[in-house]
């Protein structure tokens, strides 16, 4: 546990003023541009999971064989995003295969390339970032909940109540890192863009450096979650995907093209992961 905690990034000042935020945003925009140019050199040998084009394409791989169902991912996510227990972005459930073998299924937002939530949002409050992340503009959301109805993965939660003071998982699993969302908007997992974007600016590599990696990935004690740029063949996720015998995605028949891959449970050597 202590090891994991050491890897937590320093929480940023949650009460950043608007002016500071604008300054930061301006800097970020420049940094993102620079990062894109820098990254574009690496996209020549794009792996199968990525998308053609410039810049990184973030993705996640979850090895079901390594997941022990401890829910640290859920708790870290709750702490960082300041969520109540009934507002979880990431949930771990007990499931079974057709032959009856039990396994744990950990489910963040799938960040679908053809995201139903993006298509149905009437005001473009939910949108596709260039790096493949499905993000939200909480100042624009009208709270119609069509995205929630449309998401086939139940990945979205609505702010029925006012935001809470402090998440029940905080400070054990981390401190709040993002602003609270107002009552009456839908919210979701962001792949921790608040870590990725400033991380890139500081020259860190998301998926490698914990400060720039989603909280759930950092918190996982069995390294069941791997995160990284799917356009970069050297990234941990590209390597893991190329080494994995089989991968799957949830509800592929719906053609939502999720960015979260799973290594399905194997029957015999259950705890020999990648």
């Amino acid at each position, binding site marked *: 546990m202590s090891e994991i905690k050491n890897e937590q990034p320093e929480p940023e000042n949650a009460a950043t003023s608007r002016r500071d935020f604008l300054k930061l945003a301006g800097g970020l925009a420049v940094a993102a541009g620079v990062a894109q140019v820098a990254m574009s050199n690496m996209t020549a040998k794009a792996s199968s999971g990525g998308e053609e084009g410039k810049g990184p394409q973030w993705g996640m791989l979850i090895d079901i064989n390594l997941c022990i169902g401890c829910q640290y991912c859920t708790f870290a996510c709750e702490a960082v995003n300041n969520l109540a227990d009934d507002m979880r972005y990431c949930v771990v459930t007990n499931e079974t295969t057709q032959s009856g073998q039990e396994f744990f299924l950990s489910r963040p937002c799938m960040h679908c390339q053809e995201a139903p939530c993006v298509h149905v949002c009437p*005001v473009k409050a939910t949108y596709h970032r260039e790096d493949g992340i499905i993000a939200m503009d909480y100042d624009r959301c009208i709270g119609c909940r069509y995205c929630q109805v449309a998401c086939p993965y139940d990945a979205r939660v609505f702010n029925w109540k006012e935001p809470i003071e402090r998440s029940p998982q905080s400070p054990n699993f981390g401190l709040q890192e993002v602003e609270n969302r107002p009552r*009456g908007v839908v919210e979701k997992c962001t792949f921790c863009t608040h870590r990725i974007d400033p991380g890139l600016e500081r020259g860190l590599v998301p998926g490698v450096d914990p400060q720039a990696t989603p909280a759930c990935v950092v918190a996982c004690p069995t390294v069941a979650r791997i995160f990284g740029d799917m356009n970069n063949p050297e990234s941990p996720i590209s390597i893991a995907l190329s080494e994995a015998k089989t991968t799957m995605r949830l509800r592929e028949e719906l053609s939502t093209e999720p960015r979260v891959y799973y290594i399905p449970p194997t029957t015999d050597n259950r705890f020999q992961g990648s």
Partner: protein
Amino acid sequence: MQTTINYPKLRFGKKLIDVFPYWIGFLLLGVVFGLVGAFVVLRDGLQVTGLSNRVPWGLWISVDLSSISLGGSAFAFGVIVYLLKIKRFEIVGKLAVLLGFLGYSTAGMVLLFDLGQPLRFWHPIVFWQVHSLLWEITMCVVLYLTVLMAELIPIIVEHPFFDGHPLHEKFPILKKVVEFAKWLSHWLHKAGPVLAIVGLTLSLLHQASLGATYSVLYGRGVWFNQSAPTQFVFSAMSGGTALLFFMSVVVFRIMRPGLVKDDVLYDVARIAGGITLLLTYLRLWDWAVTNYYSFDRNITLQTEALNAVAPYSMAFWLGQALLPAIAGSLLLAAKSVKNFRYLMTASVIPIFAAILTRWNYNFAGLIASSTYDPYTPIIRINSYAPTWVEFAVATLVISYWLLAFSFAARYLPFKGKHEDHH
């Protein structure tokens, strides 16, 4: 020209009592109760409802869909009156416009409470997301409400108040307003055909999209029902025209006898009957196709679940197939039946069926959802029970509808100078 209006009266012993004030008082009670609920939901947010992350849409969306569908006669009769210029439907057409306006304004009102951020209701008008069915519906409803308003103004201006009233001399500003309204209504009346075409386009677009709203919900109950858009259009026309017939009999036969010939009312009933039969025919094919193609595991699971727990198959056979077939036939044979009591009773069924379809799509569509686990997905039955706040707000908007209709039925002349001029 002044029309004499009979007010419905109730007989108590030897006394005849005008029930209108009591009726209005009763509706005002509903409004007051509703306003309490509206205040609570605006203050405390949607946590006071029975909605949840599993069932995010409930009673209000069902009321919204139903009231939009019951405004469905307006576009059909807009075309009949303004475009095809079938004169004998002109007066009935005015009632259709009124019903349309009431249906759409009710829907807009209830949606306002359903939004998590009611003050951002204008966002879809500014922030366009052209791929979203909901965006398209919002834009259509806003524009169509404007069209209906434009069609309604000339009808309101017919009121004798606008032809010189003692108050006009007292308040010159009022006179100016009245003159402007008359000038506006003159031009709006001339623009009738254009408004009718725009109205028809907008109506067909969003009535269909309301059905399609549920067809894109892959993880939910009735997404596989691919004829939903067509069904929504036809059921809005069927239910809306049936409501128009019912209300026409009340307004034109009971309250203003002689203004509209019985034959015209029979024709309205026949149109309603014809569309209802057509809709039933479409529904039978839809049912057959859905079941035939249900080899998909998820669809089979979902259909079974919906048949078992939600009022899906019973509602289908009774409310959407058998009763409408009987009622539709009866309405179609209006000229042989020639009994307004039977016809009015029959016209209640398409109205009921249109509402039932909306409620079925919304409740059955959301209550059964399939899980995302990869190997053994099941159909999860979620639970939802509306709270008193939801019932209160529903009462508020329904009371509004009835109040506005009651006043219009009593005070609007429904016949003015336009007929004399043209």
